[in-house]
């Protein structure tokens, strides 16, 4: 069978909606269009029932104790904002210190930066070369003023999975709340809010084959009961934590997507890992100077983030334009700075510029893996042939010894 182009290998950015999800959503646009907050008639009851069923399904996926612990939002950006700002505001009399990591998503980092401006103190923990936070560092950073620790489950660029369970032990012991941006990892790697002592968790539907613009925040209701100050004022929906009429079709889709993940996520992970390793081994055996960024062991099965030395990431993406991937190169961003995540790992700037993120997912096929690896190998060779750095490397020149004229 001929390969269909372009090929999507950017599943960390978003995912297509599973057809089974769409099917379940459709009636909620017109037949069952009620407002879930309408308490006085059947249209409203039907919508509310559907929303609560989704809560249950999503709760199950992360092993929440009760479906009431799921608050619906517009996505994980909002969930992260509400979780961090909401907790900071509610517990401000208890303390003003927050711990997070330097490789968090911007929705966490920029939220923390804003809180710093308001007088909170934030500790940004570094990560090792493996892209993981050391729980010992969390332990050392905890003070009597610490009210919240926010560490992501899995990183969106390098796919590294954080030791949430170990961190959860520490925070629980100290009576500090633990929030996790679980967007990239939920359904893909083990995540159990009870076992891991997670108190708040952000998730979003569009990274798990559900629709965009729908997210959730898990807020623990017992041992401890987590309180937060709402950041959106209005009709008092979602038990006062997030006002606004619920996106019922989106939430129905989110629930179905969670249900599919619950049933098929594990098997899917095994399949993705097989394909990821096939891709990695092919690239590694045909090309020299290829570096995997971050731990291979503690990693999302569908993630491969590699640097092809001497080749710039954006030029690479242009050369394989029939394959949708992403890069940590500065040339793809407006900022002219390479990825802060790769920098945090201690990957040199030149290798950060050379990074490509492959994100595999539900509809990735073995044929696509073979096509992409052959294409990438061919194009890396092509671009290296026109790279002055590769020529210097081949001539045995140490690139670090050259006096570069930075501009």
């Amino acid at each position: 069978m001929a390969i269909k182009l372009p090929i999507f290998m950017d599943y960390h950015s978003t995912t297509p909606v599973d057809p089974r999800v769409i099917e379940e959503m459709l009636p909620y646009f017109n037949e069952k269009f009620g407002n879930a907050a309408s308490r006085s008639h059947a249209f409203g009851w039907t919508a509310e029932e559907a929303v609560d069923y989704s809560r249950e399904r999503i709760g199950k996926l992360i092993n929440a104790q009760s479906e009431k612990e799921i608050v619906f939002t517009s996505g994980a950006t909002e969930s992260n904002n509400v979780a961090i700002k909401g907790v900071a505001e509610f517990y401000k009399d208890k303390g003003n210190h927050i711990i997070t990591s330097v490789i968090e998503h911007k929705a966490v980092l920029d939220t923390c930066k804003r809180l710093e401006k308001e007088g909170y103190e934030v500790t940004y923990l570094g990560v090792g070369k493996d892209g993981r936070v050391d729980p010992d560092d969390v332990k050392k950073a905890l003070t009597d003023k610490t009210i919240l620790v926010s560490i992501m489950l899995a990183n969106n660029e390098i796919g590294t999975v954080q030791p949430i369970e170990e961190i959860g032990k520490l925070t629980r012991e100290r009576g500090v709340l633990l929030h996790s941006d679980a967007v990239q990892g939920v359904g893909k790697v083990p995540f159990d809010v009870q076992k891991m002592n997670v108190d708040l968790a952000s998730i979003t539907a569009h990274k798990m084959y559900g629709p965009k613009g729908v997210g959730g925040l898990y807020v623990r209701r017992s041992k401890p009961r987590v309180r937060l100050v709402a950041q959106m004022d209005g009709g008092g929906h979602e038990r006062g934590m997030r006002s606004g009429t619920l996106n019922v079709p989106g939430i129905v889709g989110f629930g179905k997507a969670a249900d599919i993940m619950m049933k098929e996520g594990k098997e899917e992970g095994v399949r993705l890992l097989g394909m990821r390793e096939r891709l990695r081994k092919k690239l590694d055996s045909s090309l020299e100077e290829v570096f995997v960024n971050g731990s291979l062991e503690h990693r999302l099965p569908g993630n491969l983030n590699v640097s092809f030395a001497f080749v710039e990431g954006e030029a690479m993406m242009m050369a394989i334009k029939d394959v949708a991937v992403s890069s940590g190169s500065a040339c793809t961003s407006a900022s002219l700075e390479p990825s802060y995540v790769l920098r945090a790992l201690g990957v040199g700037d030149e290798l950060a510029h050379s990074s490509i993120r492959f994100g595999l997912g539900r509809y990735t096929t073995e044929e696509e893996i073979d096509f992409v690896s052959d294409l990438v190998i061919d194009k890396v060779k092509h671009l290296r042939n026109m790279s002055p750095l590769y020529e210097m490397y081949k001539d045995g020149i140490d690139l670090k010894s050259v006096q570069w004229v930075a501009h």
Partner: protein
Amino acid sequence: MAYSDKVIDHAENPRNVGTLDKEDPTVGTGLVGAPACGDVMRLQIKVSDDGVIQDAKFKTFGCGSAIASSSLATEWIKGKKVEEAEAIKNSDIVNELNLPPVKIHCSVLAEDAIKSAIADYRAKQAAKR
């Protein structure tokens, strides 16, 4: 970002990729940029006795626009007198390739590479005399 057709053409079929003998006294080599900035350009010219650029070659580590800028630069300077080549401005490259604002520095690098290759050639000539 969408690329202009000309950038795509140069990036996919770069002209004059290669290496000239940098020990040759008639060859000038310019190496500009830095790996840590994500862009390095090497542009070389071979100049005849009457001051005409007979050959030009480049190698670039950088984005598609940087590759296209250097490819275009070699194409333009070939057959030109050194002084004419020296007068090429990065804005000429921006216009020809339709570069968006974020890619202007790629064209600046190409202009720097031309100037740096010429300077190297002149330094060699001066040393000879």
